[in-house]
Each structure stands twice: as C-alpha cells, then as structure tokens.
C-alpha cells in the first residue's frame, strides 16, 4: 500500500505541475487564509501605508525580476509562468469575488460568515493570498514577455502589465487613500473635516460656501389607490411630469394640467406664487371620468418640510397626488481660503470635482430634509497619491483593448 501511495504522489507532483497541482496549491493558500481569519484576531485590517507600501512594491518587482532572471529553471517559477497556474489563479480569484457578489459585505449575524470573514472579502486573508499568487503569476509573465520583447507581444504586454499595475497600485494604495467629508454652511468658513472613523481632521485650507443651489425637475403625477396608498399604474414607474397644458390618461381618467407653480402657497381656496422658504410646488388639475363624463377641478401640491401635501380624491378607489420633485442638479458656489491668504472661487457639482493642493474635492450631498432650501452642503475630499500609477495601468488596458479588438485572436488567424 505504501508503495502505491508513493507512486501516486510522485505522479501528482511530477514535472511539470499541471492543473491538479495548481488547484492543490491554490486551495492550500485559501485554507491557510481562512485559518488565519478564524484564529488570528482580525479587528484591524491589513494595510501598508507610505513608505512601506512603496518599499514593498519596489522590493516585490525586484524579487519577481530576480526570480525570473536567475531562477527561471526552478520548478516553482516554471509553474508560475505556465498556463495551469494562471487559469487556476483566475478561477480562484473569481470564486472568492463571487462570494463577495452573493454575501452582502456588511456585519452579519451568521457565525460562519463572520468567523471566516466572508463579509469582508477584500481584506480577507484567503483573498489576499490568492490575489498575491495571481499578481505573482501576472508579474512574472509580464516580465517574461517584456524581456523577450517582440512587436507581436505588444498587446499582450499592454493588457497584462496594465492589469498588474492597476491591481497592485489599487491594493497597496488603500493604505495612503484619504477620504474626508466636511459640512459647509452658507456664509460660514469651515476647515474641520471628518474621516470614516469620525475623527476630526483640521484642513490646511478653509471652505466658504457662498451659495448652495438645487435645480429640480417638475414633480410627477401619480394615481394612488386609496386603501393601500400605493401608486396604481405603470407599476409605480415612469410617472408623468407635471407640465402646464399637458393631458394624461390614467386608467379611465383624463387629467389636464391647467396651471403649474414651482413655488407656491395656499391662499384661500387656491395656490398663488410665493417666494419663501419651504413653499411647495402646486398644480391646478381637471380630472374627467371617461366612464360617466363627470368633471372635477382642484389644486394639488406635493407639500414640503413646512407645508402638508394636498391630493385630490377622484373616486372611491383612487386619488391623484403630486410626488416630491426629483433633484436635477445640485452645486455649491464656494471659495477656498488658503493659509497664505489666497482666495480661490469655484463651483462644485456632482461629476465635476475640483482639484486643490493634492486633494480632489467633490460635491457629496446636502440636507435632504430641507431640499432646495438647504444651507448645508456636504463636500468630500479625496487624496490618492497612487492614482497616477493606477491610471497608467488603466490606460494601458484601454490601449490593449483597442489592440485586441483590431487584431483579434491569434489562433483563429493562424489557422485560417
């Protein structure tokens, strides 16, 4: 029996290592990682920050280079630069990311999930080890192709090296990534930001919010079921915007919008245009019941934080209501005040961040209870010194994609 065993083992780990060996090694790494998760305290996640991550990166690339250059004939390096190792590590990374795609990455009540760390895959030891193997494969293969450079390898290098750079810079960069948020009130300078752990951080410059502006879409019309209170047409989706003069049909009701006021207040039995904080939009509508030709007209309003909404009951079953307007655009007109006494004016908007002193400043949110009357604007500040490296990787991959699209598949072309 022992002889038999030895024979099988020899076959299994015989030169060159194939898929079975690759999966053994991969699963070994994963099991090790999960053991670490269970038995090693995981209260703080493993991250490297400057300068250790930079040292690690340089060291890692040098080691990969040395390994490829002078140890390429060893079993393990030959295995790492061959296809079974690549495909296996792609499959295992896919497997672990799939866990992330199924189990919500939030604190969990299940002991298994918590102990194995399945709800924080990105900082899970199993994932980090598998990713390390993946990056090692990718790095070695990139070095191999660069050292044996041919023009036909160009696309290959762009894709593989690009992915390597983007991934490693992304992983190592988390340690240096700073994300702060700051509440800025109209007419007051602010310079104390908070990080994700709610620590207060003093900024080297201050924000002065001159004006916070919200543009809104018109509100929408909805047909509401009186008993359930839910929207009862189009499955609650794709409602009609309130536009003066438009005519819409809901089931057997024909609704005409006679008047629309974006800012209004109730005065007697009608709404009038007013301009004060909390004045809601309103509309005068005429509803015609097609079945019995009865007609009724009234004012409806979506209400605001100061005033109640008003609906129109059009039958025993249904009412017409006006929804709270959706936000079209919000922006902050700010000044950045530096310690040197400089004053930089800019307008921040979603999708339009502003760069200042190594920080990227984003419009994040506002007091949504107050809506367009909010005098609070929440800004976010992000500093990511590793971004240039990540962008180099991303743009290499974009170029690689164009190359791939243009050149197509090597095998297919060769065998044509």
């Amino acid at each position: 029996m022992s002889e038999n065993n030895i024979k099988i083992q020899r076959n299994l780990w015989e030169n060159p290592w194939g898929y079975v060996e690759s999966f053994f090694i991969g699963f070994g790494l994963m099991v090790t990682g999960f053991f670490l998760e269970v038995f090693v305290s995981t209260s703080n996640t493993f991250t490297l920050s400057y300068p250790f991550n930079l040292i690690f990166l340089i060291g890692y690339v040098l080691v990969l280079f040395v390994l490829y250059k002078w140890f390429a004939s060893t079993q393990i390096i030959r295995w790492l630069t061959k296809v079974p190792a690549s495909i296996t590590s792609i499959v295992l990374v896919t497997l672990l990311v799939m866990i992330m795609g199924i189990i919500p990455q939030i604190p969990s009540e299940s002991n298994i999930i918590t102990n194995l760390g399945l709800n924080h895959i990105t900082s899970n030891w199993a994932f980090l080890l598998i990713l390390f193997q993946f990056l090692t494969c990718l790095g070695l293969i990139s070095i191999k192709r660069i050292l044996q450079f041919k023009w036909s390898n160009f696309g290959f290098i762009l894709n593989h090296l690009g992915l390597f750079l983007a991934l490693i810079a992304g992983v190592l960069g988390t340690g240096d990534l700073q994300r702060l948020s700051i509440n800025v009130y109209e007419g007051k300078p602010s310079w104390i930001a908070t990080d994700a752990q709610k620590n207060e951080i003093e900024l080297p410059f201050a924000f002065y919010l001159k004006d916070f502006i919200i543009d809104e879409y018109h509100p929408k019309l909805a047909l509401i079921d009186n008993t359930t209170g839910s929207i009862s047409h189009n499955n609650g989706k794709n409602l009609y915007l309130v536009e003066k003069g438009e005519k819409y049909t809901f089931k057997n009701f024909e609704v005409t919008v006679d008047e629309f006021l974006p800012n209004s207040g109730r005065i007697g039995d009608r709404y009038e245009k007013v301009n004060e904080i909390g004045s809601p939009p309103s509309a005068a509508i005429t509803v015609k019941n097609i079945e019995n030709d009865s007609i009724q007209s009234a004012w409806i309003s979506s209400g605001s934080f100061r005033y109640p909404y008003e609906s129109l009951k059009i039958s025993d079953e249904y009412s017409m209501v006006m929804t709270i307007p959706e936000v079209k655009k919000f922006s902050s007109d700010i000044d950045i005040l530096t310690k040197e006494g400089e004053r930089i004016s800019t307008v921040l908007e979603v999708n339009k961040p502003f760069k200042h002193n190594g920080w990227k400043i984003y419009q994040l949110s506002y007091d949504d209870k107050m809506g367009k009357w909010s005098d609070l604007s929440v800004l976010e500040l992000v500093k990511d010194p590793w971004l240039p490296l990540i962008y180099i990787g991303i743009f290499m991959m974009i170029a690689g994609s164009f190359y791939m699209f243009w050149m197509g598949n090597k095998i297919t072309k060769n065998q044509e």
Partner: protein
Amino acid sequence: MTWIDFPLYSSISISLWILGLLFLLISYKKESIFKFANLLFVAGWLTLILFVIKLWIELDRPPMRTLGETRLWYATFLPLIGFLTYIRWKYKWFLAYSIVMASMFLAINYLNPETYSKTLMPALQSPWFIPHVLVYLFSYAVLAASSIVAIKGWYDSYKGNFKMETLKLADNLVYIGFAFLTLGLLFGALWAKEAWGHYWTWDPKEVWAFLTWMGYLIYIHYRNFHIHKSQQALTILALAFVVLLVCWFGVNYLPVANTSVHTYTNY
C-alpha cells in the same frame, strides 16, 4: 410623447424583418434572393434607428437608464453585429439569429409598455454616461451572440458534425466582446472617480461585472492553450454567459442588491 409611437415603429421593423427572414430562407435555394432579404433587414433597422433618435430628442437625455431602454439598444445593436459578422464570416444563420433576437427584444418592449421617465439623477449626468453604457450594451450583445454559437457547437457535437469553424466564430465574437467589456469596465472606473471619488468600490454591480470579465478571461486563456479541447471551451463560454446574465438582470434579485448604486429601475 414619442414612446406612444413605439408600437408603430416596432411593428414596421418587425414586419420588414420577418419578410426579410422569409427571403433569407428562400435564398438557401436561390442565392439571388439574398440581397432582397438584406434590403428588408436594413429598412427595418433604419426604422428602428429613426425611433431611437426621436426618442432621444424627445426625452432630452440618452435613453439608456431603464431595462426597457437597454432592451431597445440591444435590439438596435444586434442587427449591426449580424451585418458585420456576415460581411466578415458569411454566416447567414447568424444574421438570421441576430434579427430574430432583435425582434424578440422589440416584442418584449411592446408587451411591457413604458412611458419613459424624463428625469435623470445628478450622478448620471456625465459625459461618461453614454460611452459607458453603449460600450457595455454592444459588448453584451456580442457576447450573447457568442453563447448562441456555443449552443450551436454543442448541438453539432451532439449530432456528431462539430466543425472547428464554429468555435473560431465564437473566438472572434468573444475577442470583440471582451475588448468592449474591458472598455466598459474601465470607463466605469474613470467615471466613478469623477462622480464618487473612487474608481472601484466593490459595488455589487461592479463585483458581477468583474466576474463576467474574469469568466471570459478564463475562456480566452483556455482557448489559447488548449486549442483542441472544444467541449470544455464551449462549457466555459456558456458558464461565462450565465455570469453575464446575473450581472445584467440577476444582481437586482441577489441579497446584495440594496447596497448597489446601479439599481435605477426602482425610480
């Protein structure tokens, strides 16, 4: 509202296409008929494009937000892919498939009428929006086609007349689709940096998009080094498409859905 015109435009397109498919069928017996089939396909396609343009103008925003709108784009892109593939590889059956699929998507939209909403949340108002979504939809359409090729390959092997040509067509489609998938993913990352301050946040949709990308990555690597193992390659291709479908529709039903910034369908 232009959406009300949809039944008109879509029925014109579908009728022209059905007629074209008949001509295509006849052309297997009589080759000269084929150009009429093509003419009808193009006419139907142009009708659809006209509708998309009108809808876009009317909505005042790119019609790419809801599932129904993406179906419309899918229906618009499939014929294009069919034409291009025909020009390059001369597969009539593939052209027919792309037209049938496009008609099916139009029919689904016809049965689920939507009065398209005009509102667009601030995060979506970006120059990245159109390239990101278009590139993705094109990619999905091409990759869907590649999985149909995989099914044909399976069927052929079952019948015992599998040809390597089938797998080569799949390869070409996967390469084109994967290139676009990569672009879509990276455009998304660049956009996210502008909109949310970070290029990658492991949002559920991102996770599944990444998985889809990895799935096709496995196929490409497998094909490159195991040229003759066609059955396994076909299986990988089919599985990768399952992941793509989860990414496209499935995410909304997974337990992770409510943490996603990509679920706009509730609006």
